[in-house]
């Protein structure tokens, strides 16, 4: 018994001792936390007609919309979200993949997804877009597109940096009680965190 007590005490002391700081490590850039509002991603067609129209592309390096054919990480059109990595599924007006972006959808909150699990990273294929299942269609009578709670989009950007996104709304000005009949849709509001340090897989 006595030995066990001693060990426990020892363990507690070690646990409380301050961590040593390694001064040789290079200083890392801070993780960027941003809120993007009313990111407009229109589509043509729908409601029984074939969908077409340009995707609205987003670049994490600049944190802005882009029309570049190469310098983009993810792109939106209606409820479709694609990444600049993998192969095109061949939908009308779907851009060619020129980068090596990879992604997955994590279950959790922005706070709980603290680290990238590289083993889950995947790319768009002919068969599926990796970021397809971010929303829930409420069906009748409201017919709303609502971001499914607890879905965090984790992305490895084209230059090997990591970002995570939580989509908050599909409707203009992110109303608390959206109305599919009167609120304009295809206006994304999302939170994202971007770690500008290459290969750094944590978000802290």
């Amino acid at each position, binding site marked *: 018994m006595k030995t066990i007590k001693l060990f426990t005490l020892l363990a507690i002391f070690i646990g409380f001792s301050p961590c040593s700081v390694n001064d040789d490590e290079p200083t890392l850039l801070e993780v960027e936390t941003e809120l993007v509002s009313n990111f407009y991603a229109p*589509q043509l*067609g*729908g*409601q*029984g*007609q*074939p*969908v077409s129209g340009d995707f609205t592309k987003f670049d994490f390096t600049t944190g802005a919309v882009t029309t570049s054919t190469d310098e983009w990480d993810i792109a939106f059109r*209606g*409820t*479709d979200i694609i990444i600049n990595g993998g192969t095109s*599924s*061949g*939908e009308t007006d779907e851009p060619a993949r020129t980068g090596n972006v990879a992604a997955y959808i994590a*279950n*959790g*909150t*922005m706070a*709980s997804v603290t680290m990238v699990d590289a083993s889950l990273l995947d790319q768009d*294929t*002919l*068969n*599926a877009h990796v970021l*397809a299942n971010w929303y*829930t*269609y*409420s*069906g*009748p*009578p*409201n*017919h*709303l597109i*609502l*971001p*499914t*709670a*607890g*879905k965090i989009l984790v992305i490895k950007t084209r230059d090997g940096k990591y970002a995570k996104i*939580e989509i*908050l*709304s599909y*409707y203009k000005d*992110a*109303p*608390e*009680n*959206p*109305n599919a*009949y*009167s609120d304009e849709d295809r206006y994304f*509001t999302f*939170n994202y965190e971007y770690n500008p340090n290459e290969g750094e897989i944590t978000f802290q």
Partner: protein
Amino acid sequence: MRPIFLFILTFFVISKSYSQVDPVLVNDTLSVNELNEVLITATRTYRQLSSLPLPAQIITKKEIKETNRTRLNNILNEQTGLITVQNFIGGEGIQMQGLGSEYTLVLVDGVPLVGRSAGTLDISRLAVGNIKQIEIVKGASSSLYGSEALGGVINIITDNPKKNGFNGDINYNYGTFNTRDANLNLDYKKDKFSINTFINRNSSDGYDLINAVDANTIDPYSNYTFNTKVNYDLNNNTKLYASGRYFLQDQDYIPTETEVGKIKVNEWNTHLKVNHKYSEKWSSYFEFYATRYKAEDYLNNVSDNTLFSASDYNELLVRPEVRATYNPNDKTAFIAGIGLDHETLVRTDFATNPEFNSPYAYFQYDGNPNEKVNIILGARFDKHNAYKSQFSPKGAIRYKLNDNLAIKGSVGYGFKAPDFRQLYFDLAGIAGYTILGYNSVSSRIPEMLANGEIEDESDILVPLSLFNDKLKPESSISYNLGVDYKPTSSLKLGLNLFRNDIQDLIDTQLIANKVNGSGVYSYYNVNKAFTQGLEFNTTWRTSNNLRISGGYQLLFAKEKEAIELFKNGQAFASTPGSPSFQLNENDYFGLYNRSKHMANLKIFYNFSKHNLTTNLRANYRSKYGLFDTNSNGYLDTYDDFVGAYTLWNWAINKTFYNNYEIGFGIDNIFDFTDTPEYENDSVFIGNIPGRIIYAKLNFKF
């Protein structure tokens, strides 16, 4: 908490004041009446209610008349553990032991009603003016009745002429929202022959709970019920019975400002029965039943009066059945039956015109091995051409400890066959989505690929091979354990614990993405759920004049998978426009439309000197959720709920010169309504219109 407190307070204040005014008279005829209460639903033989090993209840004609109820949903909503739930097209379906309308069998004189166009059987279409009693048996009863009898059975027993000669009555009820209900009962009986005709007309201007929208919550409607029954006893041993019922309803259908239309419902039932007694011990019944339910609706564009949409539904059920009973002594009864259900449906948005054929056989033993023990054992087999055949056993036992106390328990299997919709739907929704029945998937998906509605194989999310098998019926095992306690001849207490373990619940899932950005949905077996709780009922008759009854149901209704998900921290919630957060196991609320607590209190008083009866009834229901409002697919504590409420109803009736009666009453005295809080808010109670004041006239001849 407050409504419960109010309840208890009222209970004590009123019971105390009455017991002071009125000397307590215990009349022995009361308990004799109770012993005579007999029902047929529980065993398909006439059976004394008080000695039954199953949880069951009888609602008498007297209660229906004294409370001035005109439709079945009104009277059932005042019973312990029963509540009607409105479906999205306005039908009122019953919930029993926490199981929804799809899982409760509704019979009229022992034969089922059809017409579950959206799963729900709308019981507001049933008039109650010709009812002798309503029998309610709780717990799975598929061992006698087959499909749909998971939660229990409600059997409406209509009245037969009792006196020789020509008799009848006229009843007229008029109330708020221009609600009119007119009844005519005509009876003729001469010894071995009797005929009864019942005619009812019911209409209302409907009501509107949402002022901001131009559509009514309930649109104006009117309906007619015609029912004729003939009984003829060929001799002492052979009896003939024939019944015909016809129901017709016309309702406005005005969902928006720009479209206007009508919904028409047409239903007929015919029921023929020959009953022959071979000896004191042997009897047989030959029965033939057919019913058709038709519903048609259309919508026209207001601007140019062109057709916007139309749909129709036409279901037919034909059932021949033969059964025999054998009573070796007055304490033992055997019953066995064979029959066939033939069902067809013609419906808009269906891939085919399906046909179901299901022969079945059942057997039951009901006996008393000794003075104290009653046992029921039974089983039924249903063979089916479109889903997996079912074997449904059931066993029940009642043990009488002494004259005041008995315990009873039962275990039974119940199932609900997949309905036509779940098998054969081919619906293209206005918003671009498609819903396919399970059996339509393997043929329709390749077609949609070929015609370009689905772009390529990659858009098919669920392997089509999963749809090669037969869809399994939803099934449950139900357990009931109860105690009947009668401390005195005037006081009766009953407690029942129940649990229904449900398997293979049928749900919808997204199976493919369409080119138009919408999806293809179909049905699949996946979920396991349970409902469990307790039911408590008490009746106290202080005298012939005063009767007080109270009831309470505690209910937990949950999906097993969801419990795990919440426990493992895999459930999240968010309000639109805000970040998600994690939920824990205490945050899971359970299934939609279920209240944890439901209670009722009823006080009936009879001023016999003045031929006057009056009653006050209160019904309490705790908060419940209508659907998921924070996009995680489950009902959790952060969702929007409908709040708890209590409805108070009062009625008074006075009889003059034996044959004339006038009545008056107020339903929902405190004018409770729950209306939308903002535009597009769907979390509100659509089937409580507010206070209804009515008057009634009745004339017997």
